[in-house]
């Protein structure tokens, strides 16, 4: 097994809402190895972005409480004072944001923006710095690097801007990259280009990548391992081939069958009943997905669901996956039909 880069242990991120703290990320543990892409998937409101922001420390410190550990290079990032954290963010820990329109500074040239993390973290002569910037621009697939170096973000297309954002994240050779929906704001053909670019980069750099997305297509194209998140918890963790060929948790199976994929014909898509519960109303005892599969009997769930390792490296929360079937499927055992 490759070297571990990032280790998240029992991370709990709670937000203060009217005086009470509610956990949006509720006891998440994950390790990321060198040269590995771990995708975190889920619907909006499942806590995936809250998780990303807690790792990199961009949450609002006044209203957010963090518990647990995020270990990078033997340091727990959650306990570090801001000055020390700033020595790590942008250097060892890079971030790729969703929307390249808002992630870039409209008043600074591309060259200056890519050089900025280097000014802060590395002592380089201005000639060496420029050389490095041009090299980075080449790495992210920008052909005319000398011209782009002097341009401003508004002169570039969305896809080019996202390439620049990736170049900034890579500037100081990070050991860990967090990519929060890196392709969501882009057109289909541009999305394909960025996905291919990130696959290329993964070949040439050694960094571990956490890829946060709601798009299972992006996951299938890029991830090595996948963690499916629901209501603040991981409900299934598996390597990518296993997840798509043998998904177990009811939530994973429901998500997969609700995509209008380009393979199936005009059947009805699966609809997950109900909505993602808000963090205030969430019932934290018992299986959190149970209210959305009411046709599965209650005794199929565990009282206190934990992650079970069903095969080496394949984890599933709760026992309800054993009895799960879609409502339209025929059931052999009539005891498990409640509706």
């Amino acid at each position, binding site marked *: 097994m490759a070297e571990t880069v990032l280790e998240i242990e029992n991370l709990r991120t709670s937000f203060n809402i009217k005086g009470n703290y509610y956990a949006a990320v509720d006891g998440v543990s994950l390790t990321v190895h060198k040269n590995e892409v771990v995708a975190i998937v889920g*619907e*909006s409101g499942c806590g995936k972005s809250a998780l990303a922001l807690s790792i990199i420390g961009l949450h609002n410190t006044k209203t957010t409480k963090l518990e647990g550990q995020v270990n990078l290079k033997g340091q727990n990032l959650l306990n570090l004072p801001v000055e020390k954290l700033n020595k790590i963010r942008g250097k060892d820990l890079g971030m790729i944001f969703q929307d390249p329109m808002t992630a870039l500074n409209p008043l600074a040239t591309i060259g200056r923006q890519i050089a900025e993390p280097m000014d802060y973290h590395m002592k380089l002569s201005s000639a060496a710095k420029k050389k490095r910037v041009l090299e980075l621009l080449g790495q992210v697939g920008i052909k005319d690097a000398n011209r782009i170096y002097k341009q401003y973000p508004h002169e570039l297309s969305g896809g080019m801007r996202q390439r620049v954002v990736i170049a900034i994240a890579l500037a100081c050779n990070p050991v860990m990259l967090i990519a929060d929906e890196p392709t969501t704001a882009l*057109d*289909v*053909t541009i*999305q*394909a*280009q960025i*996905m*291919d670019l990130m*696959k290329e980069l993964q070949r040439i750099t050694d960094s571990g990548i956490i890829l946060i997305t*709601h*798009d*299972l*297509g*992006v996951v*299938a*194209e*890029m*991830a090595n391992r996948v963690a499916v998140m629901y209501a603040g918890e991981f409900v299934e963790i598996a390597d*990518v*081939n296993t997840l*798509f060929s043998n998904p177990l948790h009811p939530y994973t199976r*429901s*998500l997969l069958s*609700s*995509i*209008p*994929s*380009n*393979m*199936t014909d*005009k059947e*009805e*898509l*699966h*609809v*997950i009943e109900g*909505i993602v519960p808000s963090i205030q109303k969430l019932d934290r005892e018992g299986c959190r997905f149970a209210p959305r599969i009411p046709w599965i009997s209650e005794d199929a769930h565990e009282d206190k669901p934990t992650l079970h390792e069903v095969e080496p490296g394949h984890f599933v929360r709760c026992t309800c996956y054993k009895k799960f079937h879609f409502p339209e499927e025929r059931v052999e055992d009539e005891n498990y039909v409640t509706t």
Partner: protein
Amino acid sequence: MSLLNVNNLQVHFPIRGGFFRRVVDQVRAVDGVSFELEPGETYGLVGESGCGKTTTGRAIIGLNKATGGEVLFNGDNLATMNGHDRRKHIRDIQMIFQDPYSSLNGRKNVLNIIAEPLRNFERLSPKEELTRVQNMIERVGLSPESIYKYPHQFSGGQRQRIGIARALMLNPKLIIADEPVSALDVSVQAQVLNFMQEIQKDFGLTYLFISHDLGVIKHICDRIGIMYKGRFVEEGTAEDVYNNPQHLYTKRLIAAIPEMDPAKRFEKMELRQEINTAYRTEYDSYFDKDGRMFDLKPLTPTHSVAIQQGGM
């Protein structure tokens, strides 16, 4: 007879500048688009952002003025009609918008939102209006008491249902759906797509479905038109376009759909690189000397593609 017949539709926006802000040039957002819709079918308009698909939809319903061509709805040309005559026809065409958060007025309750088309076109007593709205709200799967609630009290999927209820209120024949599911999560998206198919059968609707998501388009559409730079690149049944794409641009779009089988990801990546190389080298042969796309040329009765006369 086809329900809607769009002939050489053009929507040009003037660029003003110089002395007295004279018109110096035109943005040809839609530049000679023709297609027809048979009653009961779902026609998909696909393309990247900026290709003119939304403008086409808006020009049909009259939210943008067509600068040329005709829009024949049941044989009457909507493009040249004045407002008064238009009004008689326009109630049969309704629109569903992309963003269910901004397309519903936050200061109106659901009753007022859904009853608005009724108030515009029919004279009903408040009691009749209430029953019609209640029937519709039940039909779209919301609880009857929700008519006194406001949009912010609903989830995204529910709001899109309110938008659909509003569009259905006048029993329209044609619904123009502009990216109706793009702003929604996958599971909610599935819910709205299923629902749209269900009401299509019940109300005998024809859809013009505008989207950039090729997966969704393939799932819901019978026929598809691919747009690029305001013109049609390729048109055909879903099978024609997905299994036998002819134009390089179409091939490029289809190769961009994420591969759902993790084992094939590098194969797909190589395919995309091949197509991209071809796209760069052969790009010019797909456009005429003025830089315009060629006119559509039929290959089979259902499938046409914009390539040079006499093939490549």
